[in-house]
């Protein structure tokens, strides 16, 4: 074997085509009209689903970096004044978690609609709109939380804990706004007369949104816990 | 170039009547009471090109004393009552960095007057006037480069430091009047060419702050105004 670079193929009838591990993509944007219809079998997993997982990995890493900065910062100096989390933040938490539930319902309704079990497009749309609304309530709530902190005289540079509070919540809100844009896109596509919503788009958006909820709980814990 | 000519013309126009008046003079002496802080030797060993220029040890210059408790480097100027001079003298004042020291330690100038900063050393200096009222600037000057030209627009006592050599500190006294003097090594000063009037004279020492006295000049007389500062041991 040492002298063989590649073991020779033994199959003679048809060349070996390893489908098990292949992406089988390559023509993502291309409908089957240009090629053989058979190729549809090889349609790749939609990249948006992969993409969102990869993106979430990056976001996780960023927040891990913020966390380590917070831990180091909290333990190196004695100027840390633990702030009381504004009360509206807990309300916001409930709102964000509720939005995850409504989105999950919407996702299932979309699936039912797509499988033809129901012809009613407005049900999923209503749930999606509810999610969108809750999302905006959350963002507004966070804004009110900042106002409350400012009323207490706690600004970005007041002390390290308030710095981290503003930075972490603001970055989180930015990501939530990204999620809201995704939701709006899904709603827009769903309202089109010719349906072209891919399930992966719907899935990717909802994974991202659920992750925002999880991330928020994490952020809250990080800010709340005193080392 | 043209602005310079205009300056010169204006100056000639303004100075000539002032000279024709019989003008008074305020002169005096600056002294201190108490024990001033001991001036410490400056260790320049990190900059051999400067260190070798000084045969005798150089000391700090925050309080420069003369014989009989006199104080040098005190800026004496007319802070109120001086005739309003509308433009700065055309001639530049020069601030020299030599042997890693500022010469002079305290440099007085008129607002808007040109300031030339000269590097006479074989090393890079950095001139950093820590201005609060004026615009702060911070420029490096490698050896052999032409003098820097700057000016200050507002009245202020500006601490000057070299960012490269921490011991190098000096002051720019930027004044709204041309009637100023800096006390000499024996503590004396003189403010000549004062037209008759009532003036407030201010003396400023970098460590001890300011003192003021009022004086009235009538005709071409010489009034004596002395200032005495209270020295701090630390």
């Amino acid at each position, binding site marked *: 074997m040492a002298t063989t670079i590649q073991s020779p193929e033994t199959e003679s009838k048809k060349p070996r085509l390893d489908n098990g591990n292949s992406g089988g993509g390559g023509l993502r944007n291309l409908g089957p009209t240009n090629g053989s219809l058979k190729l549809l079998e090889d349609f790749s997993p939609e990249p948006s689903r992969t993409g969102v997982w990869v993106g979430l990995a990056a976001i996780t890493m960023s927040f891990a970096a913020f966390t380590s900065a917070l831990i180091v910062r909290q333990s190196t100096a004695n100027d840390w004044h633990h702030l009381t989390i504004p009360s509206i933040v807990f309300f916001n938490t409930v709102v964000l978690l509720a939005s995850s539930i409504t989105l999950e319902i919407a996702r299932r309704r979309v699936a039912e609609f797509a499988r033809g079990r129901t012809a009613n497009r407005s049900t999923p749309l209503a749930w999606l709109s509810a999610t969108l609304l809750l999302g905006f309530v959350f963002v507004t709530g966070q804004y009110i939380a900042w106002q409350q902190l400012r009323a207490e005289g706690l600004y970005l540079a007041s002390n390290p804990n308030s710095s981290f509070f503003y930075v972490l919540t603001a970055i989180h809100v930015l990501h939530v706004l990204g999620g809201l844009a995704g939701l709006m896109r899904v709603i827009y596509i769903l309202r089109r007369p010719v349906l072209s919503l891919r399930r992966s788009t719907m899935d990717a958006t909802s994974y991202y949104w659920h992750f925002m909820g999880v991330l928020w709980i994490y952020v809250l814990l990080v800010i709340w816990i005193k080392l | 170039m043209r602005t310079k000519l205009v300056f010169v013309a204006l100056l000639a126009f303004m100075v000539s009547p002032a000279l024709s008046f019989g003008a008074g003079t305020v002169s005096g002496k600056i002294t201190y009471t108490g024990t001033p802080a001991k001036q410490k030797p400056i260790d320049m*060993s990190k900059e051999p090109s400067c260190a070798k220029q000084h045969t005798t040890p150089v000391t700090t210059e925050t309080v420069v004393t003369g014989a009989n408790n006199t104080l040098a480097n005190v800026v004496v100027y007319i802070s109120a009552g001086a005739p309003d001079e509308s433009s700065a003298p055309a001639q530049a004042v020069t601030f020299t960095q030599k042997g890693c020291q500022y010469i002079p330690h305290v440099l007085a100038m008129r607002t808007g007057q040109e300031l030339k900063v000269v590097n006479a050393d074989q090393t890079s200096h950095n001139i950093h006037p820590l201005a609060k009222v004026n615009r702060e600037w911070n420029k490096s000057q490698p050896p052999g480069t032409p003098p820097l030209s700057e000016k200050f627009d507002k009245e202020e006592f500006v601490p000057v430091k070299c960012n490269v050599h921490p011991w190098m500190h000096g002051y720019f006294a930027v004044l709204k009047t041309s009637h100023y003097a800096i006390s000499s090594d024996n503590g004396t000063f003189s403010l000549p060419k004062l037209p008759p009037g009532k003036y407030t004279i201010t003396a400023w020492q970098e460590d001890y702050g300011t003192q003021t006295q009022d004086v009235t000049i009538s005709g071409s007389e010489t009034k004596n105004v002395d200032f005495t500062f209270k020295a701090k041991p630390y």
Partner: protein
Amino acid sequence: MGKLFAVIVFVIALLSAIPIITHSWFGSGISFALPEDISTHGHAIDDQLSDTMVEAGLSFLAAQFVLAFFVWKFSNRQANAEIKTFPGGAKGLVIAALVLVGTEMLALGILGQKAWAAVYFTPAKPDAIQVQAQAGQFAFYFRYPGADGKFGALHPDKIDEGNSNFFGLDPANDVDSRDDIVTGELAIPINREVHLMMHAKDVGHSFYVRELRIQQDFVPGLDLSVHFTATKVGKYEIVCTQLCGLGHYNMKAYLNVLSQEDFDAWMKQKASEQ
């Protein structure tokens, strides 16, 4: 072309090794030898460095020569020349790398620990001379506790460089600080351990004395310390190795290793100047 490549690689490898072996720039008198070690811990670092030099140098020469040889031998062969596989194949090479490089690295790593430990894992002796070093843009200043053996407290708001108060001492209110001796050079007696406490006034700096084999950063807000014993009288340069701003290149001071008598005299003179 392949043969030219082989020759050039061979020559470059040889020429690269010459200044290392001879410690000089092709006989011009410019020395690349490590400066004389004047510390008690430095020989361990020097030994470690020369061990590594031998191993790294051999690996370097071997790899470059093999590259040159193979390119010489196998470039531009005929189109039908037989393609051979390296005896042992990938497996052999992987094992060789694992075993050879692995043991080499482990050996160096374990040996190197000792040299590192000599600098960092032992505390300074209680009778070591206490000196505080302060780094600021762009000069070092040193402080000795004076006759009372106590350092005065530091008050950053009291720093007044124009008045030579580089450390921010408060002699008006703090008795301990009145006899503190502040100098621009680091004078130490020979053969006595020095415990150098490092304080940064503004930004990051570093304390590097080649002859002492000591390099340690000054970190603002974090007071670190090093300790060392100098074994040879002389004047050595202390330079800053951490980028600290425009005057970085000019930030230096002198380490003055004195005999005990000279040191005492120096100390007396400095005390009188304060």
